[in-house]
């Protein structure tokens, strides 16, 4: 359960900063935003799965 829920924190923080940055650059495509959150979740999940 920890493995699924804990990656949410880095995903929300890093994903939001990433989205804000790209919005400032003029990129507002919704699917790209969702994809970036999925990418951060996958990254955090992979790292955490190695640690637990």
């Amino acid at each position: 359960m920890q493995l699924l829920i804990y990656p949410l924190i880095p995903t929300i923080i890093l994903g939001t900063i990433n989205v804000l940055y790209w919005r400032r650059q003029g990129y507002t495509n919704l699917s790209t935003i969702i994809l970036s959150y999925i990418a951060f979740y996958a990254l955090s999940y992979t790292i955490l799965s190695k640690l637990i």
Partner: protein
Amino acid sequence: MKIKQNINHHIAAIKLIFEELKAGNFLLFFIPGVVASIFFLSIYSLTSSTASLFDFLEHIPLIGGYLAGGVNKTFGLLMFLLLQIYIFFVLTVLSPFNTVLSEKLDAKLTGKEYVFDLGQVMLDLLRMIFVVFLAVFLEYFTMIVYWIISWILHLGFLDTIAYILISAFYFGFSFYDYSLERHKQGVFSSLGFAFKNMGTVILTGLCFLLLFYFPYVGVIVAPVIATMIATVVYLKKNQLIK
């Protein structure tokens, strides 16, 4: 006597940590810090270039030096406050990894396994965020109170030391919270622990700050080592390990 005991606990903890790291244990926990350090470097380069935008002020005759000095001083304070927020932001990003690290180290040293249910994990998640926000808020509040007292009593010469001790206390608190959370202590009883054991908490926070200010590797190394120190010291303080 208590100070000596605190220092001994920290020295023993550092020795134990280096033995573990030398044996190749817990090395993977440095990986999340590598990701955070990339963010740190980009933010640092951005803010330093903003400060250099005001370099032209120095060339204004007569008042240029004063203006540039004022801007630098303001940026210095702003950088310090932003750095505090940034460190807490890094700690929030790393908190799930640090929780696992603290739990694994505790299990290795005490042999006790911790089992979590869904409700517990959800509460932990909310607590990780809440504790960091509480620590930032209280740190700024304490700094403002100190700043007013310092301004009234002309304690300007103590400012640097006071700011370092205040930030060390709140960083230390956030590291002890991983252990306190596991031992079923609420957020406010966790804060109570920090105030009761101020020396211990400040010492751990100082270890963190000392490591954090190492260029480039600080962000990677400091959170991991500080989490491990806080876990070992907490166990030693409560006589859960020798």
